[in-house]
C-alpha cells in the first residue's frame, strides 16, 4: 500500500464531493452513508462524484430515526435490500429535517448499492489502510471534543462513546504521527476546510470499531 493516499486528489482526480453541512440535524449516519455511495460510484464508474440525496436516506431509510439518530450499517442494509436507488440531491433536496419519504417511482434514476460490509478493525488498523486503497470508509466515532478543532492530529481527548459518523477519505503515514484524513459533515468552515486528521493505530475516538465499506 502507498505511504499516503487521498481520494480527494488521486491521480489528479477527486472522487470526493464537496463537504456537506448537517446543521442541526443529527443525521450524520445518513450523510456519511450517502457520501460513501457518492465516492464509490465515482471510483467504480470513473466519473466525478455525483451529489446524491442525503435527505432520501434521512426520510426513507427504514429502522432509523431521521435527524434523531440512526445507524450507517442499517442504512446500507436498507439500500441493498430495498434496491432503492439513491437519487440526486437536485431531485430530492436536503432540508436538514426529518420529513415523510417522498421517493416516487418516476424519480427512480440513481445509484443502487449492491453490497456493503460492517466490521470492527480494533487492533488491526493496518487492514483499514488496505481497505482505503479500494475507496473511502464510513466510520463511527466519539466526536464529543471535536467541536472546536482547528487543525493538527487528534491523538488525545477522546472517549469511546460513539456519537458521530464520518468518512475516512485517505491517510498519511509519512510523518512522525501517521493519520487518517477524515471528512466531517459540519460544513467547510469547520476544521481544515471541513476535514480533520486523526492518529492511526490506537483506535483514537473509537475510529476502528465500526467500519463500513460499500459497493455500487
Amino acid at each position, binding site marked *: 500500500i502507498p505511504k499516503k493516499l487521498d481520494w480527494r486528489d488521486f491521480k489528479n482526480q477527486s472522487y470526493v464531493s464537496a463537504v456537506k453541512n448537517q446543521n442541526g440535524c*443529527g443525521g450524520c449516519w445518513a450523510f456519511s452513508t450517502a457520501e460513501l455511495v457518492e465516492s464509490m460510484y465515482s471510483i467504480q464508474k470513473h466519473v466525478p462524484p455525483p451529489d446524491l440525496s442525503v435527505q432520501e436516506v434521512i426520510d426513507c431509510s427504514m*429502522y*432509523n430515526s431521521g435527524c434523531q*439518530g440512526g*445507524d450507517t450499517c*442499517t442504512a446500507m442494509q436498507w439500500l441493498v435490500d430495498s434496491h432503492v436507488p439513491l437519487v440526486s440531491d437536485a431531485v430530492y433536496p436536503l432540508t436538514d429535517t426529518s420529513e415523510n*419519504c417522498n421517493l416516487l417511482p418516476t424519480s427512480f434514476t440513481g445509484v443502487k448499492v449492491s453490497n456493503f460490509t460492517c466490521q470492527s478493525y480494533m487492533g488491526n488498523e493496518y487492514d483499514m489502510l488496505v481497505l482505503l486503497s479500494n475507496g473511502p470508509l464510513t466510520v463511527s466515532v466519539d466526536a464529543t471534543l471535536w*467541536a*472546536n478543532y482547528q487543525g493538527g492530529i487528534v491523538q488525545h481527548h477522546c472517549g469511546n462513546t460513539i*456519537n458521530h459518523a464520518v468518512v475516512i477519505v485517505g491517510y498519511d503515514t509519512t510523518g512522525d504521527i501517521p493519520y487518517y484524513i477524515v471528512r466531517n459533515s459540519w460544513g467547510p468552515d469547520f476544521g481544515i476546510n471541513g476535514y480533520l486528521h486523526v492518529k492511526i493505530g490506537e483506535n483514537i475516538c473509537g475510529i476502528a470499531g465500526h467500519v463500513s465499506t460499500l459497493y455500487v
Partner: protein
Amino acid sequence: HNQSNELHFRFNIFKENLYRIEKLNQQSNKSSAWYGVNKFSDLTPEEFKASYLTDLKPHHGVLKAKGYVTQTEKLYSLN
C-alpha cells in the same frame, strides 16, 4: 430585554468554552490537534451534543410508517 439576556448568556458560554479550549491546547504538543474559536463556541456542550452528535445505535423495531415500501404498496393498490 430578552435579547440582552440571551447575549449575556451566550457570552458566558463563550467564556467557558474559551477556558476549555485553552485547557485542551495546554495539553497538546507540536503535532497534536489544536482548538480555537469557531461557529460552535457559543454553544453549551449539551447544545452541541443535541444538535451535532447523535444516537448511533441501531433502531430495530422502529419502523417508519411512511417509508418507501408503504408508498409503493399504495401506488400498486391504486393501479
